[in-house]
């Protein structure tokens, strides 16, 4: 006999059956029955956040670090709308999260009831899919489908809107969690087309100036090992998108660094001059391509993606392959192995030697260390801070970030050798993502070093979560690159608006961040020079602070800009490399 459970109990039980560890949430009227069901069990640990947006970012950070879906519970109305930014963030970066929202009872839907909002409607453009529970009995099946959809194919957020009457504790149903799920209208591709794979391998072998350009799909698709194997066979240069960092080892000699708007000189130059570009799990985002009409004029484009809609959306692919990155790369490796066995000279070694020589010249013309004009001990440069964090963590931390100059400096100067270590909002560019995302990672890996490299502007968008960190003893290390400005906005104003800093500074209205951290019960440090920085770093990452949240307020040079920077409307080789003399 199946057990008889209420809708609320079925919901929580279904989460248990999905193996959910944490539920990031915030209660309210419409979700009270569900909260009572949570109270009565121990398997799923609920984490009480301080703002629903942060709950979604925590679930997202958890999902990005582990590959497992993150789960959120919010109430109806304002709870649901507060979650939207986080849902959109997960949607843009294709991360699997399941968001359960309370809803007013079914009979009241559409009556402008207290705290009613059309969650399915308001979230529709930013979800992979959504469900509205009409009857409690649907709950187990819907939960099963939601997790299946969120985690398969191109992953993404799924919303389950749960009207209060369907969680009524007085009505019970036979509970059975479906073992399998089949959706007749949803069948993600599981492997690539063999003919296309052969064609792709031929194109790669024939290349004289190849570049392998990989994105978040390699990280999310667990394809890093297969990518490494491919590169070991070919010895071709690799560049990663902002989302793809760690998909290929950042310290590998074949790594060109990040490409795109703030990518390295050599990555962008190599892309522009390439004759074959192999895009893996990347989507030719405008922050990568610059002007699509001028994009890589000589290149044959081989594009592998799990989402057919990403192929030929911005740049037409000459050889499209639809499929999961790992499965397709594995097959490519097999084809490549037999091709190279048959003909070890299939790769034009002379052409490759020339190509690497050109790349080395670009690298020496403008490596990333160019602009670290050593201006003595102070002011402290943001690049120096990121490098210090890299050294202090032996390059082995989980690093989350926010949005702005600090994010770009972190992406440029922290070298990620493993996937899922670099966690940032690349697609939506959500300020306020960094701290809650770091918390989600720390929940997943309590013993890991988790660093949030943020800016004071972004940090203040979700700093209430310092209180949650105290409640759950999360030892996140926050590195605040404090330039007392919305630095990235200021950089654009410096460069394109004649230095008119319209509302990008705070006029001395910033809090004392060290005191602020202290008032939440955490440790705070300040560093304004290289000497101070070194001292602070050796403390922060010492065993003494292993179990404590530490906030480092790094007061950096407010005038520093991020370079290289793509020239708007240009090709990939159009970059500003350093600060231009001020124009009259």
């Amino acid at each position, binding site marked *: 006999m199946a057990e008889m459970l209420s809708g609320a109990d079925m919901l929580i039980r279904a989460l248990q059956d999905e193996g959910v560890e944490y539920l990031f949430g915030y209660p309210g009227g419409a979700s009270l029955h569900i909260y009572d069901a949570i109270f009565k069990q121990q398997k799923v640990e609920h984490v009480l956040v301080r703002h629903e947006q942060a709950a979604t970012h925590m679930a997202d950070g958890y999902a990005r670090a582990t590959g497992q879906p993150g789960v959120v519970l919010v109430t109806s109305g304002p709870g649901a709308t507060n979650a939207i930014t986080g849902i959109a963030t997960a949607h843009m970066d294709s991360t699997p999260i399941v968001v359960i929202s309370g809803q007013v009872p079914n009979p009241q839907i559409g009556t402008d009831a207290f705290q009613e909002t059309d969650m*399915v*409607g308001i979230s*529709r*453009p930013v979800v*992979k*899919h*959504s469900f*509205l529970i009409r009857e409690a009995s649907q709950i187990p099946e819907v939960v099963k489908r939601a997790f299946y*959809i969120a985690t398969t194919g191109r992953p993404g957020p799924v919303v389950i809107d749960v009207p209060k009457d369907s969680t009524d504790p007085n009505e019970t149903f036979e509970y059975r969690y479906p073992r399998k799920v089949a*959706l*007749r*209208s*949803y069948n993600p591709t599981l492997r690539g087309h063999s003919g296309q794979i052969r064609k792709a391998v031929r194109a790669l072998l024939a290349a004289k100036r190849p570049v392998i350009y990989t994105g978040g799909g390699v990280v999310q698709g667990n394809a890093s090992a297969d990518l490494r194997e491919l590169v070991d066979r070919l010895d071709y240069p690799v560049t990663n998108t902002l989302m793809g960092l760690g998909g290929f080892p950042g310290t590998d000699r074949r790594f060109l660094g990040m490409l795109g708007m703030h990518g390295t000189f050599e990555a962008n130059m190599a892309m522009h001059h390439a004759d074959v570009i192999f895009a893996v799990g990347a989507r030719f985002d405008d922050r990568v391509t610059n002007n699509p009409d001028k994009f890589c004029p000589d290149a044959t484009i081989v594009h592998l993606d799990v*989402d*057919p*809609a990403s192929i*030929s*959306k911005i740049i*037409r692919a000459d050889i499209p392959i639809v499929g999961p990155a790992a499965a397709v790369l594995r097959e490519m490796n097999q084809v490549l192995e037999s091709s190279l066995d048959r003909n070890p000279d299939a790769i034009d070694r002379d052409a490759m030697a020339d190509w690497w020589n050109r790349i080395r010249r670009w690298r020496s013309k403008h490596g990333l260390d160019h602009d670290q004009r050593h201006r003595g001990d102070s002011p402290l440069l943001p690049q120096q801070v990121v490098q210090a964090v890299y050294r202090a963590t032996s390059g082995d931390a989980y690093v989350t970030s926010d949005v702005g100059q600090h994010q770009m400096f972190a992406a440029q100067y922290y070298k990620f050798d493993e996937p899922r270590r670099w966690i940032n909002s690349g697609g939506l560019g959500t300020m306020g993502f960094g701290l809650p995302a770091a918390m989600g990672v720390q929940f997943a890996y309590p013993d890991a070093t988790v660093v949030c490299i943020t800016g004071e502007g972004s940090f203040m968008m979700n700093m209430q979560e310092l209180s949650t960190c105290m409640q759950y003893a999360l030892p996140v290390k926050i590195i605040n690159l404090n330039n007392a400005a919305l630095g990235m906005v200021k950089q654009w104003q410096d460069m394109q608006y004649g230095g008119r800093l319209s509302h990008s500074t705070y006029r001395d209205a910033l809090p004392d961040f060290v005191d602020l951290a202290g008032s939440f019960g955490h440790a705070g440090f300040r560093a304004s020079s290289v000497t101070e920085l070194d001292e602070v770093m050796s403390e922060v990452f010492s065993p003494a602070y292993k179990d404590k949240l530490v906030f480092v307020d790094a007061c950096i040079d407010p005038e520093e800009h991020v370079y290289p920077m793509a020239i708007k409307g240009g090709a990939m080789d159009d970059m500003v490399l350093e600060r231009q003399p001020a124009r009259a």
Partner: protein
Amino acid sequence: MSARRIIAVLLENEAGALSRIVGLFAQRNYNIETLTVAPTEDETLSRLTLTTFGDENTIEQITKQLNKLIEVFKVVDLTEGDHLEREIMMVKVRAEGARRPEVKRTADIFRGQIIDVTDNAYTVQLTGPSEKLDAFLRAVDESTVIEAVRSGVSGIGRGDKILSL
């Protein structure tokens, strides 16, 4: 090259499925000229026909994006092959004095039927490809049209081609 396309979509007959399709078009800035939708012979499925304008790339994206929706089974661009299209129109036309027999004659030429009559107007029902309905409106002189309602285009492939599960 931008051209008119007729796209047929087979989808789950579920609350909310239609709004995802309409939302997709709005969100991605694709245009919809006409849209019709009704359940099929299998009542768990709906079939939707829409007409849109776009170049090759846009239509390719529209098809792919539609296919990505979880509740969508199949998407076909009917204009890629031989197909039939029909639209139905009911139009109230002023028909007084000498114009009365003329409206009747024009309706006959277009194989329309007069389905309602008042002292000064006829209501004509017409079926055919959209161009034929447009031509009728021009033929009766648009200034005499009091009210017109069109169903939007429905389409089906010719011959053995079918759109099913």
